[in-house]
């Protein structure tokens, strides 16, 4: 039996939905259509309401012709894969340790989630101090040998810094899902494999990773997407390296924002945004098409 309630008044439901509709309109549809028009037109030189010139695919051609843009794409990919790998690997090791109920695991389980609750810019700021080459906690390594660590000077160091920063924040999130997943593996399976002679590492590889595969896949998609386009990446890069030195951490999200709001090149930034969206769709499609097939769902 299908019960239906019919509201006679037409304005009441709209009034209820209005806050949400306004939010969606102002923060999604409006920006999205703006980006679309900007991407295919040329912004008047001095902004304002001057005549807007439709230029077709010119903005995209310009973006694709720029070698710096392609460098940014490869930096983004490198950042996304490294940060995801680092974060998921460390989270998995921690989750396995907590699952084995090593001493103090109850307390650690509680602490591990905390970093996720901190806003990315705050994380960036904290890491900027910790990893400051001249005065941070890390400064001691430079007394062993000058410039052993200097993210302001070496692009590779700067990249390591943002990767570590992002991974640190996301370990807690990954840890929670992995711990929950590990705890859903029947204890007797682990015991059976112990009777069969496998040690903790062997058990992790042969049993826990395959049985955790659906969780790991979910986290993989989420981490890759988030590190590729997420606000955390922007916040961390902005507070630690500002894309430098010499644009060596100029990942796509950061490049778009700085090009739009510092370079005031709305058209170019809009075109890059659309490319980024296309890339992330392709990315996710590949993951679902090729990785998920190897996932064992119970």
């Amino acid at each position, binding site marked *: 039996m299908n019960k239906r309630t019919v509201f006679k008044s037409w304005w009441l439901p709209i009034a209820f939905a209005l806050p949400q509709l306004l939010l969606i309109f102002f923060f999604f549809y409006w920006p999205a259509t703006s980006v679309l028009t900007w991407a295919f037109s040329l912004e008047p030189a001095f902004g304002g309401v001057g005549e807007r010139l439709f230029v077709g695919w010119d903005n995209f051609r310009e973006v694709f012709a720029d070698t710096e843009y392609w460098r940014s794409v490869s930096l983004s990919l490198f950042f996304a894969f490294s940060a995801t790998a680092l974060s998921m690997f460390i989270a998995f090791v921690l989750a396995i340790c907590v699952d084995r109920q090593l001493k103090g695991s109850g307390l650690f389980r509680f602490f591990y989630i905390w970093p996720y609750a901190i806003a990315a810019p705050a994380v960036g700021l904290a890491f900027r101090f910790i990893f400051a080459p001249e005065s941070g906690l890390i400064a001691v390594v430079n007394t062993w040998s000058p410039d052993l660590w200097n993210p302001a000077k070496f692009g590779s160091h700067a990249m390591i810094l943002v990767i570590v920063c992002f991974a640190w924040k996301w370990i807690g999130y990954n840890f929670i899902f992995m711990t929950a997943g590990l705890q859903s593996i029947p204890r*007797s*399976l682990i*015991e059976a494999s*112990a*009777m*069969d*002679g*496998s040690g903790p590492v062997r058990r992790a590889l*042969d049993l826990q990773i395959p*049985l955790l595969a659906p969780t790991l896949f979910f986290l993989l998609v989420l981490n890759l997407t988030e590190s590729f386009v997420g606000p955390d990446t922007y916040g961390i890069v902005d507070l630690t390296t500002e894309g430098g030195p010499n644009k060596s951490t100029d990942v796509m999200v950061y490049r778009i924002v700085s090009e739009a709001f510092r370079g005031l090149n709305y058209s170019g930034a809009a075109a890059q945004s659309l490319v980024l969206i296309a890339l992330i769709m392709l990315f996710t499609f590949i993951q679902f098409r090729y990785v998920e097939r190897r996932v064992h769902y119970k």
Partner: protein
Amino acid sequence: MAEINIRNVRKSYGRTQILHGVDLDFKSGEFVVILGPSGCGKSTLLRMIAGLEEISAGEISIDGTVVNDLEPRDRGCSMVFQNYALYPHMNVAANIGYALKVAGVPRAERDRRITETARIVGLEEMLDRKPAQLSGGQRQRVAMGRAIIREPKVFLFDEPLSNLDAKLRVQMRVEIRRLHKRLSATSVFVTHDQVEAMTLADKLIVMNKGHVEQVGTPLEIYHRPRTRFVGTFIGSPAMNFFDSTIAPGGNFVLLDGIQMAIDPALGRDNAGSTVSVGIRPEHCRLVKAGTANSVPATVDFVEELGSGRNVHVDIDGTIFAVGGDEAPFFETGATVGLQLPSEHIHLFSRDTGLRLDDAPALKHNTNQSTVAA
């Protein structure tokens, strides 16, 4: 082939004691069944032998080696779990061969032994299937195959049949016994099912509340239960009990005012003391009301079993079960006579629950206050 010695083994979680000092010796090649109600500590004991549970105090040795601090894999035991614990993402062959793979046995040798094992447990046709595609009995066989392929010194079974339906259980019981005959490794089998225990065991151990109540062959335990608990736990329907006082002459007890003869040798030493009198349903006799040496009873209800029947009779509020193949039929509500043959009467102390004519050397620890459920 290995013998297992268990010396004063205790287990406690915090302040809760699960096992209160267990001493047991299993001979090489013996089929040992540990029987007890849930929460008696039988599974805990088995898991301590396997190395899955830490030993709080005492010593367990396998083949003369103390294994307290050895990892499970170094103890030479393999185990069949209650829920089979098959690896869901591996096929039958991989499940059976996993222990060999971990041990680094070369591929060809491994395949040969997997095929051999699959033949023993009757799974040759199923090697490519995943556990989810198998029936309960087949899963059970995979679990057995996984245990036997390692050629262990000791087999441990943790209630392996309790997830199977009744018919399959009987069949697997026979197969386990046959397998043991063939491999003759020491086997320890934990169960709460007395039929499994009686049929499988060379040596039967009855446990209750973290204590060993009795060790013996199934028949010894059936015919001479050492405690009131063992008497109740073994046998179906359970042993009938009533409290009575042994007559001053030591030759009878009273049931509802009627004299029931007992073994005078036994009664003489305990004349005048109050005891718990036990008799198995299959040893009680129902006769026509008014027959000599019978107690008048009312038939409460009758359970038909096909091969026989259980008649439950009421004597002044105490229910007696009378069973066996030859229990005669009576209408519910009929008045009958109940006879208790003296040679089948068991006497237990009312305070300690101990059998009165038991060898005094077997002192029983009555301190059973702190026990986990």
